[in-house]
């Protein structure tokens, strides 16, 4: 794959891009079809990793870094932890086909495909979002902030308030999880279920305990 062989760099980018996106679609089909939750979580991790590769190719190195760390790392660990906690390995096969979700997703897809007709092609340098605002960041960052990584400059200064909001979001998630999971677990329902299986009429016991 000699880059000097006459093929412009842009073409190679586009070809690898197509290949990666194809893999992404395959993984998604797998996620839809697989019923084993452990496998689903692993496939979701692979999905994120592929997505990170695509982002690298599309020049979004910071985003790729984050997607790999968060999507393939943290998110997978949390999902595995949840699977261990809920002690459920297989998804139940639904007994009837649901039309509404299919309808909604097809409708959303139809609107998008229709809306894409007039969108500028991917990668064109004269798209509206390449000629307004963005050139300011690219040309002025050195004078305004003097930070080589423009993404950092935009993230921390030009749109610093968004990032403050982002930190607040993650803070909210932190205290939300603390609130939801820090209390003593109430596993009465599980116990009741088990007793029901054992002797059939056990569901009165916890009520009496609570009402006495």
């Amino acid at each position, binding site marked *: 794959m000699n880059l000097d062989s006459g093929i412009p760099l842009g073409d190679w980018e586009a070809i690898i891009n197509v290949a990666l996106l194809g893999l992404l679609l395959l993984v998604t089909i797998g996620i839809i079809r697989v019923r084993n939750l452990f496998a689903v979580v692993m496939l979701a991790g692979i999905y994120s990793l592929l997505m990170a590769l695509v982002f690298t190719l599309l020049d979004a190195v910071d985003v790729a870094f984050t997607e790999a760390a968060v999507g393939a790392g943290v998110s997978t660990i949390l999902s595995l932890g949840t699977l261990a906690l809920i002690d459920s390995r297989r998804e139940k096969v639904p007994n009837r086909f649901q039309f509404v979700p299919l309808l909604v997703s097809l409708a959303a897809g139809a609107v998008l495909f229709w809306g894409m007709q007039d969108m500028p092609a991917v990668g064109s340098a004269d798209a509206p979002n390449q000629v307004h605002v963005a050139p300011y960041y690219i040309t002025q960052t050195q004078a305004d902030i003097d930070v080589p990584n423009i993404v950092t400059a935009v993230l921390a200064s030009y749109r610093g308030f968004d990032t403050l909001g982002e*930190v607040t979001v993650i803070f909210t998630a932190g205290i939300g999880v603390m609130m939801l*999971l820090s209390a003593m677990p109430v*596993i009465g329902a599980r116990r009741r279920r088990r007793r029901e299986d054992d002797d059939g009429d056990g569901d009165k016991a916890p009520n009496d305990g609570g009402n006495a």
Partner: protein
Amino acid sequence: MIEHLVPRVLAKLLIPFILLFGLYVQFHGDFGPGGGFQAGVIFAAGIILYALIYGLDQARGVISPGLVSVLVALGLLIYAGVGVATLLLGGEFLNYGVLDSHDPVHGQHLGILIIEFGVGMTVAAVMITIFYQFAGRLKITRELESDDDDEDEQADDHADGPVADARGPR
């Protein structure tokens, strides 16, 4: 807690480098890819790896949940605090230029350095907190379930069942 020797030794070798890499990403974000958010996640990953290999209790001994929950709030306060400081210095909110009265560009540098530190702190602390909560929950549930199997009635000390619980204390 993992008893095998190989992962334990490997983890011991790896964790310092993971944490070091986290610090590198934190403070090199101006020049290359990276920044507070990525650094926080990497740092947390180091701690999580430690907890996975050496057990939750050991990890809690190294970084206590109390300390983590303080850091969760502190990171956000550092970030917002920079904003309040710029307000008090007469600039707009988060206008780091006013942090250095002679050279606004240097002020921007300083501001970005501090807020990225705040971002990294909150992100790392939140990730560790979430992991602690999930792992801690797993531990408690397992203990309760083993109680449950041994002696069914004793578990009532832990929980009255959801119906009674919904009504709350009198």
